């Protein structure tokens, strides 16, 4: 079972709202390589694992991904508060806003609702661990392009 710690894993304090940035970051919330997908992937794969070490790590990483989900949500919450109607209408966030306003609904940047199809759980150790490698390696690809981006493994 889970206990909730009333603090973020790492602090999030954003001075200026920015709906343009929110439109990109929302993929980390509800996209195929985002934290919701990651936590669901690991937490559901652990049940069929035959080794304690893997049950342990999938449980603990899955839990940590929920904490990451919370941080991404905090970022999005702080990026989209106190916006004027004009600021919303003129941002790429406008279409999301129609259905969700400042609520946080897990979607990728495309706007299609989060789908469990993003997650593979086959009940086979090698297959599931490969799914995890593929998902984790996709992260450098999904992050916004930047010169300082870490190289994929």
């Amino acid at each position, binding site marked *: 079972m889970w*206990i*909730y*710690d*009333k*603090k*973020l*894993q*790492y*602090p*999030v*304090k*954003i001075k200026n709202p920015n709906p343009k940035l929110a439109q990109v970051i929302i993929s980390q919330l509800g996209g195929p390589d985002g934290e919701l997908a990651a936590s669901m992937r690991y937490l559901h794969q652990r049940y069929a694992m035959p080794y*304690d*070490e893997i049950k*342990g*790590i999938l449980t*603990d*990483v899955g839990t*940590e991904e929920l904490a990451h989900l*919370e941080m991404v*949500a*905090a970022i999005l*919450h*702080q990026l989209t508060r106190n916006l004027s109607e004009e600021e919303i209408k003129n941002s790429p966030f406008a279409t999301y806003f129609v259905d969700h306003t400042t609520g946080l609904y897990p979607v990728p940047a495309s706007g299609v609702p989060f789908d469990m199809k993003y997650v593979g759980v086959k009940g086979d150790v090698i297959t599931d661990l490969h799914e995890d490698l593929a998902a984790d390696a996709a992260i450098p690809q999904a992050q916004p392009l930047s010169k300082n981006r870490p190289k994929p493994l």
Partner: protein
Amino acid sequence: MIDRNTARENGTRQTNCKMLKKKLQAVDFAIVETTLYLDVYPDCQKALEYHKRLLKERRMLAEALQQSCGPVTAWEEQQGGWEWVKGPWPWEPDAN
């Protein structure tokens, strides 16, 4: 009329609480990482000792926090009413 002493005390306490909370976040992060490592290498003595040290540090920080800054989990003793539900909540800028 604002009681300046109380306001200043509250300000200092708030800054102190924020600092303690940041320290706890740092220690907890180290504990999470050590946990993941030990999950795969459960017999590593060095890691086990490190984990023990971290827990000791955490206990001290958590005690200091609980005394002056309010609960971090609902499983702690509350002082002065049900503090757990009171803001700010972690995703709000004031909590960070």
